[in-house]
């Protein structure tokens, strides 16, 4: 089965009606602070995400006639959980304890989440209200665990170089024929339209 991997530069956000952004792309799109400057890695994802949002704000009748889709962003509980966990543990906590690996010396729950004078609650509130603000452009989908579990069976996980969440996303995306936007080199999913700037993924593309 082919790897349907597309260079993000060659995909117009209006090409598909729905997109599934992985957690790290969500975080880059929501929180990367460019100050208006372009950045090699984050910029294509941030731009793609923003154009998806902005296409929904297009009201010009002439443009609407030509527009293929006003795309929406698929949000599931699993990806929402990953966004919150990755951001709070890898970005917010790291910022709180200073740059570099200093934060690794600390315990997330004891030294950050439960510490009353940390910025945990403020950062969580900021992230969640950002996500909530995008509700006009989001489509909430159930993770459909029963169907996906029986279709893929957990017993297959050891055959793949994937963590459980990525494995689950692969099965979910195949089932619903949703395009994935990711920079994760592990997301090698056959028969899933994958949109990326990740060289390792683009190298194995069958397109």
């Amino acid at each position, binding site marked *: 089965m082919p790897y349907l991997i597309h260079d993000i530069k060659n995909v117009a956000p209006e090409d598909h009606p729905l997109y599934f952004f992985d957690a790290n792309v969500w975080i880059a799109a929501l*929180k990367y602070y460019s100050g208006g400057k372009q950045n090699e*890695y*984050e910029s294509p994802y941030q731009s793609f995400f923003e154009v998806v949002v902005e296409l929904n*704000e297009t009201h010009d009748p002439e443009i609407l006639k030509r527009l293929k889709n006003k795309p929406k962003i698929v949000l599931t509980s699993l990806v929402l959980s990953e966004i919150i966990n990755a951001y709070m543990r890898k970005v917010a906590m790291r*910022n709180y304890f200073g740059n570099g690996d200093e934060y690794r010396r600390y315990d997330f729950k004891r030294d950050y989440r439960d510490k009353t004078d940390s910025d945990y609650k403020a950062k969580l509130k900021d992230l969640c209200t*950002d996500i909530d603000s995008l509700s006009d452009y989001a489509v909430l989908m159930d993770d459909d665990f029963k169907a996906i579990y029986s279709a893929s069976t957990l017993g297959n996980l050891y055959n793949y170089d994937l963590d459980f969440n990525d494995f689950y996303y692969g099965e979910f995306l195949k089932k619903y024929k949703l395009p994935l936007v990711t920079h994760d080199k592990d997301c090698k999913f056959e028969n899933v339209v994958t949109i990326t700037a990740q060289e390792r993924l683009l190298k194995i593309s069958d397109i």
Partner: protein
Amino acid sequence: MITLKIVDIIGSKNAVTHAFGVKVFDAISKHFANGEKVFLSFQGVKNVTSGFANGSIGKIYSEFKEASELLTIGGLEGKTVWIEKIENAKQLGSNPQIAKVQNNAIYELLQS
């Protein structure tokens, strides 16, 4: 003082992208270049994200030292979450080192 309404600049009630924020920055900075003060109104806005606040107000604070004297922000009555996002944006804009630390973390997350 010039009054600028965000909804007029971005053509939407949803101030939710960094790119929308940069449009607001462009509109404000034209007046700042002429030495004019600006009243930026959030009236009519439905949603605000930190990305928007960073692209607009954060960038203004990053590029104009006199931002706090030239820019007045209104239409935020009862919008405590938006006020917090705006204050965070001012802090990020005024302290490039904080922005750099955050960006490094996001960069490493994306590469992981």
